[in-house]
């Protein structure tokens, strides 16, 4: 049989059909097998969307009087930051998709053009890197349109504006990725690190220049004016972010007459055309770069000689392995093993560093603001919740699947002279100690920056201890009760029914602790609020010290229960398991 090559439209059609079929199969299998998770994700997404919408609606109403200058600056800052982030994220996704994925290896052996393979992976990367923008940007822009009483054409134009805009930074990221791989294959990690370092330095400099050098007193009108004037650097006419914000602002303008409204809409369409033209141009450039560099770059990367690292025993591992027998020897050795795996898995510890690092940065900057005591206490309390929620995402994402991931290696553990209980306890200790150290440090930092009294700090640290124990207990216990030994991807394990349930229970535990401690530590505030509402003074609740004692008395048993109940149930289930 004489086979024939596909032409360009046919290749695009093939790629679209493939994605459509996969998407349909994904949706139907989710609806069939993971209705709980699907429903939960949908409901939480809708709640999140609604909450963001309400937040922006209130904010835009608040600043409506200062609208023209402020909105332009805010939009420009938001979209320019988004542009930089999207360029990096798409570049990284394209590197993985084009050069490190099994699919690309398969497609490169098929009679497809390099540009077609690039386009296929680019579409995928575009979806992944822009969904956050869509989730965050759509409620913001819709709220803005409603507050400004924008004409109906504004809401129609939102989708083409967003879709065409995201292509620009994504194309830039993809082009840079391919050029770096083709031109500097050995130095690609260095190029990425240097780029990230430059971007981070730039962001820090801009942040300091904007917020740090402000002369006026904080949170005054003059301070706002001064800060906003420093954001004017994002209003550059050659930036796509400026085209987007200008286009949206024009599209939302409702003039005094129909003609004026029509004129503004036409102005907006001009910017839309500009964005579209540049998006198409950059897509074309990306396609050319793919044609000339993709196969060569892929081949060069394949030919890279891996750097053989002679790994000696790290001093910490050696210390732990030889440490005294307070922790049993098998548990100690399992801890060392898990620590080595954690250290060598960049996916895990980099996310850990990023999230907790950002929290640390935020907490460190709390000292810049002046608070009343009550306000500071509330913020400190909310920071406790934030730390707990971040920790729960890590325990769900990495700790819950840890027992399941032993699945393929279970035959090794099964043959060793260790009890199954010891495997579960080692996972718990690893999670508990690993989470406790950074969380205690963060809470201490937050409370010190807020200038909270030591009584409150002690309560917060105790809560942190309870949260770390409880979240670790829930994740490990449920992971032992509902392991999935067939799956090798931790993301898929965490996304299953057990992982979702673990996340929900973790969130409920955090909310329970936070609400309880929040109520008991803010009796005075509660009394004042109730008094104002009812017109009477209430004095039946104890004061601050009493509240702190009550907090401790509730948190400690609650934390112990959340820690040991799921662990005991998990150990029992794990003992009887046949992998």
């Amino acid at each position, binding site marked *: *049989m004489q*086979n*024939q*090559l*596909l032409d360009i439209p*046919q290749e695009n059609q*093939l790629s679209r*059909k*493939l994605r459509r*079929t*996969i998407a349909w*199969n*994904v949706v139907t*299998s989710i609806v069939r097998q993971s209705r709980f998770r699907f429903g939960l994700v949908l409901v939480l997404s809708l709640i999140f969307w609604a909450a963001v919408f309400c937040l922006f609606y209130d904010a835009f109403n608040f600043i409506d009087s200062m609208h023209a200058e402020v909105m332009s600056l805010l939009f420009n800052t938001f979209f320019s930051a988004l542009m930089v982030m999207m360029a990096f994220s798409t570049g990284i996704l394209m590197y993985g998709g084009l050069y490190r994925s*099994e*699919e690309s*290896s*398969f497609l*490169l*052996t*098929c*009679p*497809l*053009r390099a540009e077609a393979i690039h386009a296929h992976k680019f579409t995928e990367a575009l979806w992944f890197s822009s969904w956050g923008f869509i989730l965050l940007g759509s409620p913001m822009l819709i709220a803005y349109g409603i507050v400004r009483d924008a004409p109906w054409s504004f809401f129609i134009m939102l989708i083409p504006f967003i879709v065409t805009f995201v292509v620009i930074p994504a194309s830039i990221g993809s082009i840079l990725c391919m050029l770096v791989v083709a031109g500097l294959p050995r130095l690609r990690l260095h190029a990425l690190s240097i780029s990230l370092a430059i971007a981070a330095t730039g962001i820090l400099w801009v942040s300091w220049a904007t917020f740090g050098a402000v002369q006026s007193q904080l949170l005054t009108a003059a301070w706002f004016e001064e800060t906003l004037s420093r954001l004017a650097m994002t209003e550059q006419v050659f930036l796509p972010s400026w085209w987007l914000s200008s286009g949206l602002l024009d599209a939302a303008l409702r003039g005094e007459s129909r003609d004026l409204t029509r004129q503004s809409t036409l102005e907006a369409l001009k910017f839309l055309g500009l964005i579209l033209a540049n998006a198409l141009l950059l897509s074309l450039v990306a396609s050319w770069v793919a044609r000339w560099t993709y*196969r*060569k770059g*892929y*081949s060069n990367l*394949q*030919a*890279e*000689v891996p750097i053989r690292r002679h790994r000696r025993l790290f001093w910490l591992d050696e210390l732990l392995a030889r440490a005294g027998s307070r922790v049993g020897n098998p548990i100690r050795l399992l801890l060392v093993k898990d620590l080595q795996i954690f250290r060598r898995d960049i996916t895990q510890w980099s996310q850990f560093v990023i999230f907790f690092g950002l929290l640390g940065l935020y907490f460190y900057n709390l000292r810049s603001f002046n608070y009343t005591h009550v306000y500071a206490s509330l913020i400190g309390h909310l920071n406790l919740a934030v730390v707990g929620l971040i920790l729960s995402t890590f325990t769900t994402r990495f700790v819950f699947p840890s027992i399941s991931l032993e699945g393929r290696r279970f035959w090794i553990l099964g043959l060793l002279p260790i009890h199954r209980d010891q495997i579960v306890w080692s996972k718990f200790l690893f999670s508990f100690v690993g989470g406790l150290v950074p969380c205690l440090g963060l809470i201490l930092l937050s409370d010190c920056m807020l200038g909270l009294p030591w009584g409150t700090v002690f309560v917060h640290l105790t809560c942190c201890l309870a949260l770390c124990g409880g979240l670790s207990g829930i994740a490990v216990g449920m992971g032992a009760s509902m392991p999935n030994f067939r799956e090798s991807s931790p993301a898929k394990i965490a996304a299953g029914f057990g992982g979702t349930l673990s996340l929900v229970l973790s969130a409920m535990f955090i909310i329970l602790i936070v609400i309880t401690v929040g109520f008991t530590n803010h009796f005075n505030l509660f009394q004042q609020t109730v008094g104002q509402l009812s017109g009477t003074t209430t004095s039946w609740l104890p004061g601050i010290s009493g509240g702190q004692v009550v907090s401790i008395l509730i948190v400690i048993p609650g934390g112990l229960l959340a820690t040991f109940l799921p662990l005991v149930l998990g150990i029992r289930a794990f003992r009887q398991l046949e992998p």
Partner: protein
Amino acid sequence: MIQFEHATRTYGSKVAVSDLSLTIPSGELFALLGPNGAGKTTTIKMLVGLLRPSGGVIRVCGHDLLTETRSAHLHLGYVPDEPYLYDKLTGHEFLRFIADMYRIPRELSQEYIKREINRFELHEFANELAENYSLGMRQRLVFAAAFLHDPDVLVLDEPMVGLDPRSVRIVKDLLKEKTADGMTVFMSTHTLAMAEEMADRMGIMVQGDLKFLGTVPELREHVDVKTRSLEDLYLEITSSSTGRQKASSDDT
């Protein structure tokens, strides 16, 4: 037909494939043997277009893989050692995708898909998502996809891994039938018995060099021992080559 003309591939300072010149005509099943790290996988990756040769030319049915990549791929079928399937496609959908990729007309593609499903006995799971397949099922589906467009050249990398005896027999019979029809088969394998049973010619590669090229009787002549098994002959060639290399590096 496959042609290697002074094909070379280096990884940094290491030469993975050194000056390989080899022609495999139509209708021949060629088996490439060699120890781990010999350069077999590199040779196959160059042959299917994943790696570019550092020097020399590789042609498939007259098409240079470097300058006429797509045209060469049109004549190629490839079964890798670790088959890739789209987890969220069924077997049937995957075969449909392959048929569309090779622009097989709609009226023919259904017939060909049915043929391959029957041939490789995929009926039971053709409509299930590939994520639920065992290794053997995946391998059979990949074979079906490789044969779907009736390639002129078939490249196999450890093809029998994961296949049960019945499937192995199906593949062997099919390869014999296809080579008789003129298909060129290039197979890399560690299974000496299979190479001896199936191959018209074989090559033994050691540290990037093709140390031997010919039939089993020619190999016996080459090693000058008539009574040993293929395994003994193979070990003789590979260990003596490795030993000479080690001796010379020790001397330096």
